[in-house]
C-alpha cells in the first residue's frame, strides 16, 4: 500500500510517499525560515506559507518517488493537534486531492505520526535495503517531546495508547526556545542550545527540577523562571557565561524527562522505549534516557524526529489497518494521543 501523506500542523510543510507504513519513497519538507525574525511561530504567517508551497511540494514528492497519482492507494493528512489555520490547509488540500483522484482520505493524529516515525526506514541507492530494520517491539513506553508537546504514553498495541503524563505548562521544546531567546541565541532553540551546551559545563549552575512527586506529569515553567532569574543575576555581575547556562539548563531538562521515562519503563512491562518529536533529536536527552533504562531505545533519525510527511504516511497505514469502523477526517486543534 502506497500512501501520499501531508503534514502542515505547525511551521513545517511536509509531503511524503510511504509504502506499507515503513518504506520512504520520497519525503520533502519545507521549513519556514520566516519565523526566525520573530523568534516564535506566528500562526497566520505559518498558514499563509503552507498554502503557498503545498501544491509544489506535492508535485515534487510524486516526482522524487517516480510515481504518479494513479500509483497511489490513499491520501493522508494531519488533522490535529496543531494550529487550526495550518491544519485546515493540509487537510482540505488532501481531501480535495483524494476526492478528485478517487482515493480514500485518512486523517492522522500528529502525535501518532511522531510515534510511528520509529517504523520508518529509507531506501539505499534508490532500492529497498536487503535487510530493513525490524519493527519496534510493543508494548512500549513512548516519550513525544517537541515545541508543542511533552507526552509520556504507554503504547499497548498498534493505535492503542494510554496516557501516563504530559506537561502541565510549557512543552519541552518551548522551554528550549524560551531559554534560547533569553540567551540571544535565535530560533528554533533546541538545536542551538544543544550546540552551545557542548562547550559549557553542565554542573556550573544547579537548577531546580519540578517536584511533581510520583506523577508522570512534567512542568518546565519553574525551570524557565529559574534560568531567567539566573541570567538576570549574572548580568548584574558582568558577562553571562552563555555556554555554561545552556549546558546547565539542558542537563536539568533532560534529567527531568529521562527520569520519568525510565520510571515508566520500569513500572510497566514493556519491550522498548520509543522517542519522537523535535526534542528527541537532542543527543544529550537520548544518552540520558539510554543510560537509565534497561530496555532497547529507538529514536528516529533527526530529520524524522522533527515534523515531516513520512511519519504521517506511516501512521496512516496503521490507521487503515486498525481503523475500527470509521476513518477520521475532521480537523481538531486539541486532539490528544490517548
Amino acid at each position, binding site marked *: 500500500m502506497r500512501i501520499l501523506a501531508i503534514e502542515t500542523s505547525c511551521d513545517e510543510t511536509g509531503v511524503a510517499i510511504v509504502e506499507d507504513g515503513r518504506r520512504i519513497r520520497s519525503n520533502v519538507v519545507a521549513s519556514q525560515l520566516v519565523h526566525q525574525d520573530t523568534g516564535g511561530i506566528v500562526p*497566520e504567517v505559518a498558514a499563509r506559507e503552507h498554502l*503557498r508551497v503545498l501544491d*509544489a511540494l506535492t508535485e515534487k514528492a510524486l516526482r522524487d518517488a517516480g510515481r504518479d497519482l494513479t500509483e497511489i492507494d490513499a491520501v493522508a493528512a494531519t488533522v490535529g493537534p496543531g494550529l*487550526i*489555520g495550518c491544519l485546515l490547509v493540509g487537510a482540505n488540500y488532501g481531501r480535495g486531492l483524494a476526492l*478528485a483522484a478517487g482515493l480514500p482520505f485518512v486523517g492522522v493524529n500528529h502525535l501518532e505520526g511522531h510515534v510511528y516515525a520509529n517504523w520508518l526506514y529509507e531506501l539505499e541507492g534508490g532500492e529497498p535495503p536487503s535487510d530493513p530494520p525490524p519493527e519496534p517491539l510493543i508494548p512500549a513506553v513512548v516519550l513525544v517531546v517537541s515545541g508543542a508537546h511533552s507526552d509520556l504514553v504507554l503504547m499497548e498495541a498498534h493505535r492503542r495508547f494510554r496516557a501516563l503524563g504530559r506537561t502541565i505548562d510549557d512543552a519541552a521544546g518551548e522551554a528550549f*526556545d524560551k531559554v534560547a531567546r533569553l540567551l540571544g541565541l535565535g530560533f528554533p532553540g533546541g538545536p542551538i542550545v544543544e550546540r552551545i551546551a557542548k562547550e559549557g559545563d553542565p554542573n556550573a549552575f544547579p537548577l531546580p527540577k519540578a517536584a511533581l512527586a510520583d506523577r508522570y506529569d512534567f512542568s518546565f515553567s519553574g525551570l524557565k523562571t529559574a534560568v531567567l532569574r539566573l541570567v538576570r543575576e549574572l548580568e548584574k555581575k558582568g558577562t553571562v557565561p552563555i555556554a555554561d547556562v545552556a549546558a546547565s539548563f539542558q542537563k536539568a531538562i533532560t534529567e527531568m524527562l529521562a527520569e520519568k521515562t525510565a520510571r515508566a519503563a520500569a513500572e510497566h512491562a514493556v519491550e522498548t522505549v520509543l522517542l519522537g518529536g523535535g526534542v528527541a533529536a537532542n543527543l544529550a536527552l537520548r544518552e540520558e534516557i539510554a543510560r537509565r533504562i534497561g530496555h532497547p531505545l529507538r529514536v528516529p533519525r533527526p530529520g524524522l524526529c522533527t515534523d515531516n510527511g513520512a511519519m504521517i504516511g506511516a501512521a496512516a497505514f496503521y490507521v487503515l489497518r486498525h481503523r475500527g469502523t470509521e476513518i477520521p477526517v*475532521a480537523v481538531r486543534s486539541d486532539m490528544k494521543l490517548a
Partner: protein
Amino acid sequence: MLLALDTSTDWASVALFDGRDVLAEETWRAQRRHGDELFPAIERLLASTRSALSSVTRVAVATGPGSFTGLRVAIAAGQGIARGSGAALVGISTLDVLAYPHAPSKQRTCPLVPAGRDQYYAAFYQERNRKWQRRSPFIVASLAEICRQIGAHTLFVGEIDADAEGTLRDLLGPKALFASPASRMRRAGYLAELGWRELETRAQVKMGEIEPLYVRQPSIRVSFDQPFAPPPADERALGLPKRS
C-alpha cells in the same frame, strides 16, 4: 463542468455550472465549520446532479478579501481537486462575486465583507463606457472611512447587519441604497459564471499563484511568555478555537 467553492466568510457557498446553467448550488451559514462542512456539501452537489468529479474540468475559488482562515479552506481544497483531477483552477475576488449580479442596476455598487475590529473589506464598482468594472483597489477600513470616499448614491451589498446598515444611513442619508437581503448575499453560482468566463479568456496560471487577497498584514508580536503570537483579529472574529 465547473465546480465553484467559496468559504470567504461565515457564509459558504458551492455550485456546479456547465458553462450555460447552474446545475446545483448550496449556500449556508458555516461560521467556523468550513473545514468540516465543505466536502460533505461538494459530495451532495455531485450526488444531486448524478455527476462524477471526473466530469469537473474547471474549478473556481473565491480569493477574498475575507476571513484569512476561511479563504484558505476553499483555495486549498480547490488546489487539491485540481491536482487530483487535472482540472483548470481560477481564483475570483469575493468582492467581484458580490458586485456582479448588481451590474444591471447601473448603480455605483459597494460590496462589504466584515474584516473584524469594526472594519470592512470594500471596493467600488461602476459602469463606465458600457463597461462594468471595479474602480478602486481593495480596501480595508471602518464604515466612516469608507463613506468619506462616497459622494454619489451607492448601492451596498454583502454582509451588512442591522448595526452596519444604521451606521451607513447615519453617515450617508439618502445616498445609501441597500440591495434586498437575499440579493445582497454571496452565491457560488455567480462565482461559477465569473470563473468560467475568466478561464475562457485567460490561460491557466500556476496553482501556487492562486492565493488569498490578504489586503491586511498579520499582526506579529512575540513575548518571552508567549512563543506563539496572538491570533489575528480575523480569527477572533470568526471565533475559531484557540490553540491547545
